[in-house]
């Protein structure tokens, strides 16, 4: 099993308050879960990987290449797609414009490829085709999530980072989402921050527990994950 992302001794401080303490994480080709209570530092961890925050020390390696101090847009162009916790969509743009923007950012000038991938996104998420000309502010939570995942999958995604993707979604949608993840997990390595234990047990090959900025537990194989050892910490 090769390593997609390797995080070594990563520390991060916000002003004088230290948030992450020498984190060591290894993300494989399937799905890796990150769990922990609120305020443990999960979102900060993802943001630091995505390049939105600068770590105070440590290294982040993507398939061997050092991405530690790169700006967020270069990291995105390398194939790390980050879907934040607040399900950020832009209220002044239509769903279709979101797709255009994401495709343009990841695929540059190749117009044919861009059109193809947008079409493919709308086929995979038929719900999106229906609302493509609606302003994002008018979309439901589930539709926004579909839009975010679609945007994240343009180009060759080498790592998909999802921050509490099922939060606030209706149970039916959560189930659908779980199915989407299982479907994609074979193609795309994932980092999943979640509170939903059944989902994690189903999908992840590895789970780390983060508490107050430190890794306190690791379930390192699919069996360990299925046993749900990590759940004790929630």
């Amino acid at each position, binding site marked *: 099993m090769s390593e997609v992302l390797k995080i070594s001794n990563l520390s991060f401080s916000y002003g004088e308050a230290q948030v992450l303490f020498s984190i060591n994480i290894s993300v494989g080709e399937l799905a890796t879960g990150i769990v922990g209570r609120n305020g443990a530092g999960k979102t900060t961890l993802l943001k630091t990987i995505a390049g939105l925050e600068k770590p105070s020390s440590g290294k982040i390696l993507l398939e061997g290449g050092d991405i530690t101090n790169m*700006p*967020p*847009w270069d990291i995105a162009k390398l194939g790390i*797609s980050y879907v934040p916790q607040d399900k950020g969509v832009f*209220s*002044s743009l239509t769903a279709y414009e979101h797709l*255009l*923007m994401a495709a343009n950012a990841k695929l540059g000038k190749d117009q044919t490829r861009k059109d193809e991938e947008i079409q493919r996104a709308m086929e995979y998420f038929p719900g999106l085709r229906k609302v493509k000309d609606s302003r994002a502010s008018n979309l439901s939570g589930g539709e926004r999530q579909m839009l975010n995942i679609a945007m994240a999958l343009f180009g060759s995604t080498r790592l998909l980072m999802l921050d509490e993707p099922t939060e606030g979604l209706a149970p039916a949608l959560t189930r659908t989402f779980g199915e989407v993840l299982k479907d994609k997990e074979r193609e795309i390595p994932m980092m999943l921050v979640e509170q939903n234990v059944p989902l994690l047990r189903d999908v992840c090959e590895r789970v780390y527990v983060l508490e107050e900025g430190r890794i306190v537990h690791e379930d390192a194989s699919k069996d360990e994950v299925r046993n749900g050892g990590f759940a004790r910490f929630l």
Partner: protein
Amino acid sequence: MELGYLLQQTMFGISIGLTFSMISIGFSITFGLSRIINLAHGAFYALGAYFIFSAMMVFNNYAFSLLIAVAGVGLISFFVERVIVRGLYGKDIDLSLITTFSILLVASTLIRVVWGLDPKSISPPAFLNVQISTGSFVFPAYYIFLAACSAAIFIIVWIIINKTMLGRIIKAGSEDKERVETLGINMGRVFTINYIFGSMLAALGGGLMAPLMSIEPSMGSRIVLLCFAVVVVGGMGSIFGTMLAGIIIGLSISYVTILSPPMAEATAFLVMAIFLLLRPKGLLGTG
């Protein structure tokens, strides 16, 4: 008071109003996108007017001088952005207020040193320096030219914002810059492009307005407050709002000029104050 004069002032108000709108676009977008108050915007306006004055002394061709003025200011704004303004993004807004105010101050000092304290003036190009008469109503052709130019620029900006990828990025970035960055877009570059473009529009406004008023060192700080008034009255995030606000302010200034010329500009602040009290979001504000 005769109707002719009133109509003329109305035309004047609309023309300068549209120009104020055009000048304010850069200021407004920079505020909404880069989240800084760029008081240096006034400096670019003033430099636009002074550059066109000097260029006219050398070339005596209005169009060419205007081009030089706008290009010159564009270049200067590039350096200002790279060296100074860049350090202001993402920081406390007070930092940008104080620093850009200081840029404005340095600019007006340079202007005083290079061009002196006495006001300068230029005349409009000969073919525009005429009066047009329709029936008993006479007005300068330059007002039409001014209005037409500003309106045209306005339409171009509207198209850019609403129909191009850059516009989409600006709209999205004004809402959530980090999210746009994680999609793979270099917002630093977008900020720079926006700053330069906005500054060039300010210079263009300065150059277009130059034949109508006296060019003097304090014009930079005066225009930037008008830009702020336009933003308050029109609201953030709406191009159309900016245009309406500019026209309203332009008309208030031109009507008050009939009664008391020195206080005319100050009227804009009264309009701004009224809006802050009664409608803080502005006419069509979204932010």
